[in-house]
């Protein structure tokens, strides 16, 4: 029984990481209807930046963490305002290819700057806790806590704050949002900044578990699967999707190692086959 709880906990924490990255996707998609295929690479870049501040410059974990979030938010803001903005109004397809290209560049650049050897970063989340007979590392508990805090904060932001409502407005009708005086451009870039910041949180929290290396960017693909299961425009859905994939991976690596690597994608394909717009679909099919 404790085995099951152990696997469940590991799965949930892994899933929360996917969910955190997927939150970035969903935020950007909800607000700007663009699909950011470089979200995983933003996470990877964020963890490298944090490593530079914490280990290389020796600023201490919390200062370095905060600085990394700020730097990555700036990077996200610039990616939108300098590059992605230029192709607004072009087909979905162009955005997908553009962000894939950006992801490749980020991965290659990270490999050039920080090398391809995995780096480790000390975090204050050490030691283990015991829950219902299962033993779990505190670094994993930190991930769960961060996910709960972020999702609550984001929900409140979009529900109650002026800016959050402005984001929703410009997502529903850009032109109308312009007319009522919402600074749509700033909002779009800010959403990218927010998504990059969330990815940085995910990257830093993941660092003790996977180490920091350029190939971590490929986690983004699993996060993408999570977002798809969640329906792409639902934030809680993204986290639920991430947890579904994480738990499935944990159990399959214990009981069905044959599909260990691919179970997330199999689930996603099954979900897409049954419901082509995700489990938590908020949009309707275009009908003629």
């Amino acid at each position, binding site marked *: 029984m404790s085995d099951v709880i152990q696997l469940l906990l590991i799965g949930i924490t892994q899933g929360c990481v996917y969910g955190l990255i997927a939150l970035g996707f969903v935020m950007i*998609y909800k607000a700007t209807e663009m699909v950011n295929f470089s979200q995983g690479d933003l996470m990877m870049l964020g963890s490298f930046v944090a490593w530079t501040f914490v280990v290389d410059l020796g600023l201490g974990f919390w200062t370095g963490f905060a600085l990394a979030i700020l730097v990555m938010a700036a990077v996200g803001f610039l990616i939108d305002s300098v590059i992605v903005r230029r192709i607004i*109004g*072009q087909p979905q397809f162009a955005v997908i290819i553009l962000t894939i*290209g950006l992801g490749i560049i980020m*991965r290659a650049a990270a490999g050039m700057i920080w090398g391809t050897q995995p780096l480790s970063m000390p975090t204050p989340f050490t030691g283990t806790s015991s829950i219902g007979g299962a033993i779990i590392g505190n670094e994993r508990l930190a991930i769960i806590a961060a996910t709960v805090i972020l999702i609550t904060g984001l929900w409140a932001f979009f529900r109650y704050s002026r800016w959050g409502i402005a984001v929703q407005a410009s997502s529903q009708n850009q032109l109308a949002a312009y007319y009522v005086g919402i600074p749509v451009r700033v909002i779009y870039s800010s959403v990218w900044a927010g998504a990059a910041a969330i990815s940085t949180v995910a990257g830093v929290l993941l660092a003790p578990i996977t180490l920091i290396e350029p190939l971590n960017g490929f986690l983004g693909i699993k996060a993408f*699967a999570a977002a798809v299961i969640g329906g792409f425009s639902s934030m809680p859905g993204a986290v639920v999707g991430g947890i579904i994939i994480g738990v499935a991976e944990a159990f399959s690596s214990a009981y069905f190692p044959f599909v260990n690597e691919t179970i997330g994608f199999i689930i996603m394909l099954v979900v897409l086959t049954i419901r082509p717009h995700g489990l938590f679909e908020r949009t309707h099919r275009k009908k003629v």
Partner: protein
Amino acid sequence: MRIIFKRSYNQDLRIAKHSGHFLWYGLLIALALAAPLMTDAFYIGELTRVLIYALAGLGLMVLTGFSGQVSLGHAAFLAIGAYTNSVLLGMGYSSFIAIPAAAVLSMLAGMIVALPASRMAGPYLAIATLAFAILVEDMIVKWDTVTGGNRGMAVEPPTFFGYQMWEPWQLYYLALLLLILGIFAVLNILRSPAGRAMIAIRDSEVSARSLGVHVTGTKLYAFAVSAAITGLAGALFAHYLQYLAPETFAILLSIMLLLMIVVGGLGTVHGAILGAILIGLLETGISIGKDLLPGAIGTLPGLEPLLFGAILVGFILFEPLGVYGRWVKVRTFFEYFPVYRKKAFKRQRAYLKTERMH
């Protein structure tokens, strides 16, 4: 500027619109036929790779360029074609069976993917095809009794009537033949009702549906044709590589195929060929240039992906119509000389209009 005097409706359907086409494309084919006589084995190999990329790009172009369905998983069809071909050759079958079998099996896989994929759109489709490619790669690793798993498998040379084609120039001509056949097939599909339906779906699925186009069936057809052509390219790719390993067909290959058709020019047959030539030049250029560059830059890891990424981003931002689109602009400039206007090719939508319905 050439003005074509139309005498019949069938004139619009001709593959070669005027005599100039015969001349220039004839010269091109002649040049391609003569190329192995003029170069050494290394460059014949490089040219063969360009031809194979062009064929694979043509396959992807049918799906992405003409039907508007983004596929991030075309390396999977390449892999299916490559492994089918080499497994059958290894069992002692002739290439007369192995190469068509590669196309057919790949086509069947394409149709299986199309069944769920025809209901998806945009990001869902892209990620689903990506997942399919990952599954195929994983299957090749796991099914090691047939595919050799991570160890890989050696590929027999193409065999016709018991004669084994070991020479590079023989593979070159085989690839050239299949590419020309592929181009003819695609041109013919494009002027058939199914081809017109594909383009209609690409431009607007809603209006295509309301005009009575069978959207699901057309998408299925596009997937099948695209996968078959790419599978054919896969069979040739196996011969070119001579040794197959699963990591050859990783995500990066799918992205490279996509890059190729975007850089070449989406939605044109020329684009697939031009893109392949450009990527081929780039790869050859990088492998030669690495020795010429000063040590520190040449040996940096990730130089090649960095260049690929930068080119991809640059083209999407500054020339979304690709190399062929640039050529059309240059030609239009001269044809209409004093009255050419830049705005003729300007993008129309400058703001985002949601495709969602609330």
